């Protein structure tokens, strides 16, 4: 990933310090852009234009971009068909929710939003730049990612023996297990400060609301957190795609036997793809859980949600990062834009998908990126040449 690229850069000549800068600088740029989105774009949209709904859509789009691009690592690059992505989201979301909710009680005695400017979609609220609660949310998000990554490791294991449809069924089963466990095996959310103070942490971890959902979560998710994760995800995916690491992943998709014959440790790479993908999905789940207007409920994170994400990846083109991004944007906005035709909304949505796949069976961009000439050859009629489309 980042480090393999920079280590290669150092072999090519430039001094190590420079390649370190090149490795780290883009991540700092991500932070800067995310801050700008929060302090300039957010008040402009909400206060100046009054477009609350647009702001909400931008958050949803961002979360879906992370989900689609993270799934692209597994389904697109590595060619392992996983259809349980929402489960990683659920695991990450609930982990983060428990940490933020009960953590807030332990720190402040109540679960209210106490973040700084960067951690809120509210406007006109007096808040310092930074509070300890921002850090709590960051830790919760990363913890959500890590727990999801552990689950990704577990799901990655069967992928070593199973291929295609069989792996898909296992991942589907995993997703349902996670959903059912959270719904049926967790207790009610606690809200009495004294009770929470006296309950041991392991017991709090089991008080996630069950089938009622996890209510009362503070809305930390903001332009800053969402677009920080979006940009970091895109940067990671982009660097992976263009490194020897990524070529190894893609070679597994292209021809697993040949990949093995070239000395790629396919076992390890498949697991790594699952782990990283699950980590990012877990972080996205943490953001989803703390979004304004969302009541975290495992029922919503079942296979329907998993399929929504798969559709984005397939529609964008398996293996295309920009394709996944474009599809995530379109498929998040389309159902809302179709609200005008009320009850026929989902029919129109389905028809749009079918037409899309008939016209572009390899997805919007195939394995290419939007700025690559090959992605547009089909528009110019060149796809009629045999084999040129792929």
């Amino acid at each position, binding site marked *: 990933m980042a480090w393999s690229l920079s280590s*290669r850069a150092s*072999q*090519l000549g430039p001094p190590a310090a420079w390649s370190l800068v090149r490795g780290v600088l883009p991540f700092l740029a991500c932070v800067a852009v995310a801050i700008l989105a929060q302090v300039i774009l957010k008040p402009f949209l909400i206060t100046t234009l009054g477009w609350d709904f647009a702001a909400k859509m931008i958050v949803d789009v961002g979360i879906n971009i992370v989900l689609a691009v993270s799934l692209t690592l597994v389904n697109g690059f590595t060619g392992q068909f996983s259809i349980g992505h929402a489960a990683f989201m659920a695991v990450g979301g609930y982990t983060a929710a428990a940490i933020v909710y009960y953590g807030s009680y332990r720190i402040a005695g109540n679960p209210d939003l106490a973040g700084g400017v960067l951690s809120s979609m509210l406007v006109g609220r007096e808040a310092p730049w930074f509070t300890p609660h921002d850090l709590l949310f960051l830790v919760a998000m990363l913890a959500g990612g890590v727990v999801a990554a552990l689950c990704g490791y577990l799901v990655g294991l069967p992928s070593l023996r199973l291929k295609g449809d069989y792996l898909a069924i296992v991942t589907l089963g995993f997703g349902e297990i996670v959903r059912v466990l959270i719904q049926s095996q967790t207790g009610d959310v606690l809200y009495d400060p004294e009770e929470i103070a006296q309950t041991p942490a392991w017991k709090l971890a089991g008080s996630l609301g069950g089938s009622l959902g996890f209510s009362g979560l503070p809305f930390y998710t903001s332009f800053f957190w969402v677009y920080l994760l979006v940009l970091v995800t895109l940067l990671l995916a982009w660097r992976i795609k263009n490194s*020897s690491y990524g*070529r*190894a992943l*893609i*070679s597994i998709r*292209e*021809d697993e*036997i*040949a*990949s*093995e*014959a*070239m*000395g*790629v*440790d*396919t*076992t390890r790479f498949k697991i790594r793809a699952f782990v990283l993908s699950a980590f990012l999905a877990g972080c996205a789940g943490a953001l989803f859980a703390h979004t304004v207007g969302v009541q975290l409920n495992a029922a919503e994170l079942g296979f329907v949600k998993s399929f929504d994400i798969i559709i984005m990846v397939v529609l964008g083109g398996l*293996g295309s990062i920009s394709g996944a991004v474009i599809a995530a944007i379109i498929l998040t906005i389309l159902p809302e834009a179709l609200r005008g035709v009320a009850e026929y909304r989902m029919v129109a949505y389905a028809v749009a998908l079918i037409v899309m796949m008939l016209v572009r069976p390899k997805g919007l961009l195939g*394995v290419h990126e939007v700025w690559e000439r*090959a992605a547009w050859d089909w528009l110019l009629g060149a796809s009629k040449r045999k*084999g*040129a489309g*792929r």
Partner: protein
Amino acid sequence: MLEVESLAVSYGAIKALHGIGLRVGRGEIVTLIGSNGAGKSTTLRAISGLVRPAAGSKIVYDGTSIASRPPHEIVRMGLVQSPEGRGVFPNMTVEENLELGAYVRSDRDGIDADREKALSLFPRLKERFRQSAGTLSGGEQQMLAMARALMARPRLLLLDEPSLGLAPQIVQVIFRIIREINAGGTTILLVEQNAHMALKVAHRAYVLEVGRIVMEGPAAELAASDQVKNAYMGRHA
């Protein structure tokens, strides 16, 4: 360099190899000929670790036992296979395919030098350098598969049916290059259905029939034997 003894492989209940033995000496071209389903590809796959041999099978490469070692370790030891059916990465460019061939190496300068060498061996690939491998012709894909295997700098190269499905003229070219690769110091174990061509370039040969070695000897000798002529060279003497 490579010694195989009582190598047996089963796919489920079906026995593909019934304990075969073969030997490849340093600098040789050894060919393994036989008809469809004789177990030729299975033999190569077992050697490079892509399928697991049965217990008791002995595969010794350069004095080290490699039976049931994972393929990526075997490749690192310099034993590299160019898989059957070419197996190029279709959505990658020729350049990226070659880059993956050198996956186990990290000596940038050596890799670049070897890429130049491979491209001079297969000038056609130079013309197609930035083209997707899936858009190449069958012959070009075979060249790419071989060039890609060479990028790992093999000491022992396993070639699985390099002439499969190619026009006779291209087959000639491929076999000429196999000789050149061998002349450059790479030992080759070649699996072929085209017994005629294989016996022409090889030093020694083994004949495989339904999972058993039935004949072995110097290639020229086998090529002259009536049995081989009748069975594999379509000549009724």
